[in-house]
């Protein structure tokens, strides 16, 4: 994490200054997408996490509680 942040702090200004990108990403587009992507990425993270939690309980109690749901979860 710390390492990643370090890479980013080093890389972003470097790229913005030297203009290695041949497209202009646009200042507003650059900042806004970080916001949207963070939310969307968190969504993906939560969905994955939720599926893991659900699968865990489905495996543990699935047969007793709701065989239908357990089957569906397994299929997914």
């Amino acid at each position, binding site marked *: 994490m710390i390492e*990643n942040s370090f890479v*980013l702090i080093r890389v*972003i200004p470097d790229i913005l200054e030297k203009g290695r990108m041949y497209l202009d990403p*646009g200042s507003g587009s650059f900042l806004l997408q970080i916001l949207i992507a*963070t939310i969307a990425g*968190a969504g993906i993270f939560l969905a994955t996490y939720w599926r893991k939690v659900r699968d865990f309980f489905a495996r543990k109690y699935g047969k007793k509680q709701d065989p239908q749901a357990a089957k569906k979860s397994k299929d997914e």
Partner: protein
Amino acid sequence: MSKVEKVPGSFRDPNGFLFKRNGGLFRQINTAYHENYDLLMGSGLYKDLVSEDLLVEHEESEELPVETKLAFKVIEPEKVPFISFPYEWCFSQYRDAALCTLGIMKHALDKGMILKDASAYNIQFLRGKPILIDTLSFEKYQEGLPWVAYRQFCQHFLAPLTLMALTDIRLSQLMRVYIDGIPLDLTSSLLPGKSKFNLGLQAHIHLHAVAQKRYAGKDIKQAAQERKMSKMALTGLISSLETTVKGLSWKPEGTEWADYYSGTNYTDSAFVSKKKLLDELIIIAKPKSVWDLGANTGIFSRVTSNKGIPTVSFDIDPAAVEINYLEARKNNEEYLLPLVLDLTNPSPAIGWANEERASFGQRAQVDLILALALVHHMAISNNVPLTSLAESFARLAPKLIIEFVPKEDTQVQRLLVSREDIFPDYHQDGFERAFKAYYEIEKALPIPETKRTLYLMGRR
């Protein structure tokens, strides 16, 4: 010395460019792209994309580079028979092109690369499917960085698609005006209020437009230092764009065009006869390629495309082209390309020096023009003199199959209902006289049960 010509549309990218030499099309890859090219080929990304028909196939070539000092390699990509532009695509073609771009981005991320641009002009239709034609669009992914092509994707794909779906299908034509995609503030102002309740559109169009305005010309280095974007966030962004694009739809039903398709102008047997006569003429003409002008939903274009003859099926009506494309897609028709084109105002040359994107006429490397039930629309609705029509067709292709529709025909009568008949030369003799100045008439076949005639002509 062989003649070398740089392709005008590929000057923007410092990593390489396209050139033509001795009838072949090549791409010079510059040393600046060495590392990324090796990663594309070595990571398995190229192989994956080619096997899924998402990226054009190429071979490394022995051809000499054009700018030797910069050169790393020369490659020869598979040739796309007809280069089309976004303002010529119907809704579903545009949507498929957008999903193709996002699909490629996802594949690239899996292999540690990204798309460094998301230009709609990099997508072409090959064998009926959208495909990326720019092999130099990939670069190594650097963890933490936002997607450099996000703005371009929104302007080139999301904005036109949203406008077509939610405001008016004809707004795809704004792509003709704005070479780098439709500005998002303009898009935002043209969209209906309900689009703000769509999370994806609110974020990628409306908020995006506000952010662009707010940070226009501002130095964001400081702000950028404080933020980072993980790979999961980037995946989330692409997934959000994909969901937003998939959520857009447009159906030709319920439009002013809907009735247009409810009936044909022929009795069933006259229709069958026309198809049969066309088939006969095609067997005689043996064209290598065909442009069907005024093709409607492409019924007659399929007479040629079903014979394996590459056929571009043009029509002015985006609804007809949509129906045509969906049919072609459903049947995996590899030789048919439906496109939107207003023949009375065909695609002009646009972009830098008016050379970046070629005009309709400049792209004419076609063997035969098919002009069925078209003459009366050009000559009577649009006042184009018959000689001018003949001259234009003769400029496009050496062979012509054309249907003459006389004034006695109910369709022409309908066109004359609302206007004065100022066309004294519009009759079969006048038609033949006008066309004989440019063509030899090889066959003239009356269409049974109609007053129409089908001609096969060869350019003089």
